[in-house]
């Protein structure tokens, strides 16, 4: 809840002062689970991500129902049984891109350090990402492993061979200067 307020106030400050924010509403994220019985992949093209260039802060919000699966039954199980997206409709991340202000225009590897909230559970997350920053564009991409059990998501023993304990999360966020 605290994070929710933080994110909201963060969004609100953007409305007030427009300039130093870069934003995307069409960011991409996916997760991939590889298990003995099957591989499962889901894509989401509706990620909201905001970078404050004065501080290097990044805030990301993701709609759980925007994850698209190959099979509709998987999507149904994901939303209803595992992440309970009626109760927890969003996943969030708020963090810091380290050494943000020393970046030049070349692609570089940076560390992003922050907190991720999924299924109502907040965990620390530190990951490497590739970042390219120009005057009208900031692209951030990378991937990291996520342990399902860390977020209090229970996988029934019947499907334990269908779903991996650790899923690979990928992201590609292409920010543009925010103007309204």
């Amino acid at each position, binding site marked *: 809840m605290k994070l929710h307020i933080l994110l909201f106030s963060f969004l609100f400050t953007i409305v007030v002062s427009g300039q130093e924010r870069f934003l995307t509403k*069409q960011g991409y994220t996916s997760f991939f689970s590889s298990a003995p019985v099957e591989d499962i992949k889901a894509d989401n093209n509706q990620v909201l991500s905001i970078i404050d260039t004065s501080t290097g802060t990044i805030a990301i919000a993701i709609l*759980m129902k925007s994850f698209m699966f190959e099979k509709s039954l998987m999507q149904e199980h994901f939303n209803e049984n595992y992440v309970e997206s009626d109760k927890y409709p969003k996943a969030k991340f708020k963090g810091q891109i380290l050494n943000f202000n020393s970046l030049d225009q070349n692609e570089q590897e940076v560390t992003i350090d922050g907190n991720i909230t999924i299924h109502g559970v907040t965990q620390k997350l530190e990951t490497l990402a590739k970042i390219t920053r120009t005057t009208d564009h900031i692209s951030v991409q990378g991937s990291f492993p996520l342990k399902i059990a860390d977020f209090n998501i229970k996988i029934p023993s019947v499907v334990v061979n269908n779903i991996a304990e650790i899923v690979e999360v990928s992201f590609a966020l292409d920010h543009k200067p925010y103007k309204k």
Partner: protein
Amino acid sequence: MIRKTKIILINAVLIIILAVIFISVTVFNKPHTDVSENTPNFYLEATNVLEEFQDNETQANTKYLEQVLQITGTISELNITDEKGVISLSDNDSFGSVMCHIDAKENSKLTTLKVGQMITIKGICTGYLMDVVLVKCIILN
């Protein structure tokens, strides 16, 4: 006589097994909601649905998530990148919009659209971030 009963029994068991396999395969491969073939659960104006989400997001989520919405509004922004079309519907006074992510098979229709035009779109609502998000949208007119 016993032999005959046995054969009938074996056949019955076989039929039941086949039926179970058939049903589970159909359930497992249940198709995704086809937006173009579904009658909308709600007919709405873009500004109204945006207001509903801004006023009470939880309530609007309960009402609209995973539902097929048919929404009419003015195009405030058109965005086509990497074969992905996104149409934003809003009047320019409001902060936020209804963002419609267009289904790839509708891409040919995107070229004829202009900002400022009135349009009706049908899609599945997945929630609200800064905008109300609709996916798998098809363009009606």
